[in-house]
């Protein structure tokens, strides 16, 4: 666990970034918010690329910026993956990687990441002699990630590294990003406006709107909070669950949610692995008796935790499924007719489970 203390202000003619909050970082933390909310600017302030930023930035007790000091970017030992890769066009892939390696600080408590380890982790062996302009977008980002790793950073900052890539290319890179914290023990701040990437990668979410942090919590908690809908826009009401793959047979995976099971079609799955799944509130229907002879295969026994009035006469229910949470959106009429109330046991009918569809699962 690392602590990033921020108390910074950056004034721009059209926008002000004002962040005053310590961030506990472990694993991948998504920095999520609509475009123009200051996600990239925040990352650049942390990296030391915005000299006009005022205030203090400290990481694990080391001051990077204060009223009296400014540690320049090249001394902060952060790994930065830019949206556009920014590989050096005058150097080959291998030379790009060695550029970072030669400048990585060899001192410090953290063991340095070896050339071999980075090449292995991003599967770059075959690309080493290539010239960088001849690489595909996905290949460029893989090289950029490896290059950032080779500085043996204390913190990885990734600015929408997948946004310029198509689904197939994203699919090629996601597994590599997913395993970064585990393999190298480096906390990652991952900027994105793609909700599927948040669901797939992140453990925690920093929600940014209008240059301010409006929420910082674990992914499930953020998705559950209906009050954040206004800030997130694209973050559709629903929940993210981490479900364990209990079995996989003939293209159908059995996922364990609490003590119950969901059966979900999947291209492939490793039994025993944990998959993030997203269930939209609009895809969950409610029954007060266990339904029979129904096309919907997934029915979870649950208890109503909260009833909130949503937009357009809709009502959102927060449900408890053996300790996991689920959201359901129903009409106000249905609420009355079924005589639903907090604490009542109901059956949640799940019409579909999203497996980060835009990321190809």
């Amino acid at each position: 666990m690392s602590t990033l203390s921020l108390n910074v202000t950056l004034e721009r003619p059209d926008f002000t970034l004002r962040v005053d909050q310590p961030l506990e970082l472990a694993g991948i933390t998504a920095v999520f918010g609509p475009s123009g909310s200051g996600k990239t600017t925040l990352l650049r302030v942390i990296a030391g690329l915005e000299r006009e930023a005022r205030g203090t930035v400290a990481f694990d007790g080391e001051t990077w910026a204060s009223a009296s000091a400014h540690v320049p970017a090249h001394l902060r030992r952060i790994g930065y993956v830019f949206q556009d890769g920014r590989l050096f066009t005058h150097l080959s892939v291998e030379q790009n990687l060695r550029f970072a390696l030669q400048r990585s600080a060899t001192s410090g408590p953290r063991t340095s990441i070896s050339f071999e380890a980075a090449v292995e982790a991003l599967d770059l062996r075959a690309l080493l002699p290539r010239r960088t302009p001849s690489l595909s977008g996905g290949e460029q980002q893989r090289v950029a990630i490896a290059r950032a790793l080779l500085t043996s950073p204390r913190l990885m900052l990734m600015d929408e590294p997948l946004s310029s890539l198509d689904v197939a290319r994203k699919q090629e890179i996601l597994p590599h990003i997913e395993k970064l914290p585990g393999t190298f023990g480096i906390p990652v701040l991952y900027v994105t406006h793609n909700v599927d990437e948040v669901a797939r990668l992140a453990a925690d979410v920093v929600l940014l709107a209008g240059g301010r942090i409006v929420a910082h919590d674990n992914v499930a908690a953020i998705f559950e909070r209906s009050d954040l809908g206004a800030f997130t826009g694209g973050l559709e009401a629903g929940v993210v669950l981490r479900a364990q793959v209990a079995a996989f047979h003939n293209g159908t995976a059995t996922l364990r949610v609490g003590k119950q099971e969901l059966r979900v079609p999947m291209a492939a799955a490793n039994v025993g692995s944990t998959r993030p799944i997203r269930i939209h509130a609009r895809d969950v229907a409610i029954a007060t008796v266990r339904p029979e002879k129904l096309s919907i295969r997934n029915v979870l026994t649950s208890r109503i935790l909260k009833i909130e009035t949503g937009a357009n006469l809709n009502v959102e229910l927060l449900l408890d499924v053996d300790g996991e949470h689920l959201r359901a959106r129903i009409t106000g009429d249905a609420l009355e007719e079924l005589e639903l109330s907090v604490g009542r046991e109901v059956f949640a009918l799940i019409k579909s489970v999203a497996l980060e569809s835009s990321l190809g699962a």
Partner: protein
Amino acid sequence: MPELELGPVWLSLQLATVTVLVLLVVATPLAWWLAFTRSRARTIIEAVVAMPLVLPPTVLGFYMLILLGPAGWIGGAWLSLTDTTLTFSFTGLVVASAIYSFPFTVQPLQAAFEGVGRSPLEAAATLGASPLDRFWHVASPLALRGYVSAVVLTFAHTLGEFGVVLMVGGNIPGSTKVISIAIYEHVETLDYAQAHVLAAGLLLFSFIVLFSVYTLNRRMPLVRV
């Protein structure tokens, strides 16, 4: 076939080479500043740098003669420091040429640095490269074609200068008598044969240099003038 006078040719090549070297050192930091500054002074400096492009060489030469002369504040300081005069000397010619050819070094370099942009430099900074490291190992290689342009244009422009040299340097064999002055002198004394040799030589040389650059440019797209 008249014999080639090597004195002025050699002197011209020396002058052009020294001018190029001096300007690379002086113009690079300025070009860098102009490319990356957000200061409002930038426009004024750019205008001043471009002045030699529009001023008649005689105007420039006239002011330099005053400034570099024993009574001028640069020439006077030089005189008290070294006991020699700047005007009508090779050193004075270098100073005058450097000022006259200034925009031919600054402008291609500035354009090249602007072309490189902040992006790769920021990337290099996050990879642990210090500012000087970023200049040598990222900006300079990426700006290589700008350097080739600057060197070729400055060299050729210095070889071809006449008015400023005449005003500041005069016509002293071995010291300030460069090719263009020698040609002028031969024409004045109606020695067309000698003028032909030097003029044709300069013509051929200029063509070969430019042809080489454009050929190189075609083979290596990195080097473009």
